[in-house]
């Protein structure tokens, strides 16, 4: 009995020692203290700027009654539809165009470099001022577009931002215009990383033009394309600027997406918890996307 007691008493000390060994690894004495000193700022920043906001957000949007209020709001329902359309069209059209254009910009010649420089300008200029410009251009009474239509063809153009579908279309087109250059550059870098030997060998075997794209280029770019698409989807889900500055969520709150609805509920309705709930309602979509993205990144790390 006595022997058993002695073992029991020594167990916590043994456990502490084992834990200390596993934490220290091969570090000894002052090295361990320095290591802790270097890690502490990172941990503090992580806790303050990552963990705390996420936990605070989850706490703010944790009341079930918020979601009942949200689902009963007719603006929420149309915002969900708008978000789905914005993601489906905005991401896929943009990525497909970027894929095609990255092939175009692979052509040799100095003029191609000049063209590429011009092409990336929409991405390079500040987005808020460009979106505001688009908003004014589409003004039905004295906007640039309708004035051109009237001057050239004596046609009264439609009031682009007064109809839900043309306004939402304007938002989606603006987003595509703004961000296609960026993703084109990424895919262009991906194409350039394909070894020349592979392309030359394929060419010798007769895989040129569309066949070369289908059998050589696209399979090698597929993972990059998928990762870019997933990243773009996550970015777009939180995008606030295009809707706010092109359509303003109008007409009559018909073109809000979840990100802008969250801001409206938080600050215009002055109910921050409801605003957080609006954004949180997208989590069931965001979390699977992040998981797929992480898995893809792991499996594609040795590929292009």
């Amino acid at each position, binding site marked *: 009995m006595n022997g058993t007691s002695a073992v029991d008493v020594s167990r916590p000390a043994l456990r502490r020692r084992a834990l200390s060994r596993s934490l220290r690894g091969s570090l000894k004495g002052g090295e361990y203290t320095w290591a802790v000193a270097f890690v502490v700022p990172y941990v503090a920043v992580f806790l303050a700027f990552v963990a705390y906001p996420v936990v605070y957000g989850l706490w703010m949007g944790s009341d079930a009654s918020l979601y009942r209020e949200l689902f009963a709001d007719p603006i929420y329902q149309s915002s969900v539809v708008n978000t789905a359309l914005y993601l489906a069209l905005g991401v896929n059209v943009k990525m497909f165009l970027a894929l095609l254009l990255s092939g175009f910009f692979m052509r040799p010649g100095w003029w191609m470099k000049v063209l590429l420089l011009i092409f990336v300008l929409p991405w390079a200029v500040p987005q808020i001022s460009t979106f505001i410009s688009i908003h004014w251009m589409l003004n039905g009474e004295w906007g640039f577009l309708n004035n051109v239509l009237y001057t050239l063809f004596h046609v009264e153009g439609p009031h682009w931002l007064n109809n839900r579908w043309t306004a939402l279309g304007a938002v989606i087109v603006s987003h595509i215009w703004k961000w296609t250059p960026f993703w084109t550059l990424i895919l262009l870098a991906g194409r350039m990383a394909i070894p020349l030997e592979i392309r030359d060998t394929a060419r010798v075997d007769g895989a040129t033009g569309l066949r070369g794209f289908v059998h050589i280029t696209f399979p090698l770019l597929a993972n990059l394309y998928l990762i870019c698409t997933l990243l773009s989807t996550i970015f777009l889900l939180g995008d606030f600027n295009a809707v706010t500055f092109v359509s303003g969520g*109008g007409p009559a709150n018909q073109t809000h997406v979840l990100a802008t609805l969250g801001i409206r509920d938080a600050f215009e309705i002055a109910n921050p918890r409801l605003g957080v709930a609006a954004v949180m309602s997208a989590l069931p979509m965001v979390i699977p996307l992040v998981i797929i993205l992480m898995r893809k990144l792991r499996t594609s790390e040795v590929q292009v």
Partner: protein
Amino acid sequence: MAYLSRRSVLRGSTALAATRLLAAPHIANAAATTATVWFAQGFVQDEDVALHKAVDDYEKASGNKIELSIIPFAPLRQKIVSAITSGVVPDMMTSTPNEVLQLFAWQDKWVDVGDVVETQKAEFSETALQAAQAYNSVTKKRGVYGVPLRAAVVPCHIWRPLVEKAGLRIEDLPKTWDAYFDFFKKVQDNLRKQGERKVYGLGFQVTANGVDPANLFNAFLIAHGGQDIVTKDGKLHLDDPKVRQAAIKAAGYLGGAYRDGYVPPSAINWNDADDNNAFHAKLMVMDVDGTLSTEVAVKEKHPEWYFKDMVTHGVPGYPNDNAGKPVPSFVGVTQGMIPKGAKNVTVAKEFLKHFIQPKVIGEFVELGLGRWLPVMPSLAKSPFWQDPKDPHLRGYVQQGLLGPTIPDYYVFNLAMAEVRSQHVWSMAMIDVAKEGLKPDAAVDKAFKRNEEIFAKYKA
């Protein structure tokens, strides 16, 4: 290389704490005489200059320091919501928009400032005093949580040259409500005959953005006899046939004017400054808009517009109801509030007491070119407001300070603040204007939403 030891870390921390303690009294003394104040930015620079002068005068007189932040309207609205939610608050802020006073009073977020208001109680207008009060759902009673600083009413703004170009005269404007607004439809029809493609008769804010559409709808609701939709006891009266008829007429007229092409189509997306800009661009003949921002914005750059071309219809000019009786005007009152958790309530209260002295508050609105109204009737008699050379100020002050006025409905029931922010009346106007709904169906839909919102705010 020196190693960090547990003892050295402890020694360093102790030294740091000791330094902080030694410095603390000095920091505390500075804090005792400093108050942080958030104020909404003016539409014209003169308003901000006037505010700075009032603050400078206070600092000189008291020896205290005011850390003033002047913030544009929409960002200030967001800052206030964020501050109250997080608890990191300034010592004083202005109601931006006005209904935040009632909204956060409900949640017991303001310090009672009855003692501040008491110092000038005899001077304030009845409407300003009513607007300073709000119901607190924690203490279960109404309290004084705001200090009236300035006010605004909704007059009509008209381009004289456009009326004359249409072959009509401002002096021929009818005096009763519907006929008054119908007049501008005639102006538009005449201008169209002269080939004016893009000038509209009426600048109605048939939109679901900003504070303007609710002011517009309420003006029409009251003019058609729906003033008692919410009574002073906070009760909602949607079952009153007079209220229902007034709401139907208001939604029908405003939405119908848009549907029939008498309102600029882009109005459906306007925010608060857009109707001012559209008016300055002469996109419409008239605008119904709160404050004199439209006029004072051009006073320096286009004095001929201010003194000759623009007409403000306050009193006289503002139309009577269809039976010929004067229509009370809705008055919005900007309040100064002190949030709970403020570090320096004493200085904030002292500053407010200084600010609401008739001389100070009168000079504040006058230096701001009179965009805002004073909240004390005695100040309306000043040479500034009664200047016979100024074509706008006398009518504006008569309408908003001396004529019949009422505070907004959210003063009596907070639910009306949410009716405003949810743009329930805007949706009724838009349902008629764009969705093809009959006015009575649009109003029934809006009434249902009103009832849902009121159910959330049972006292």
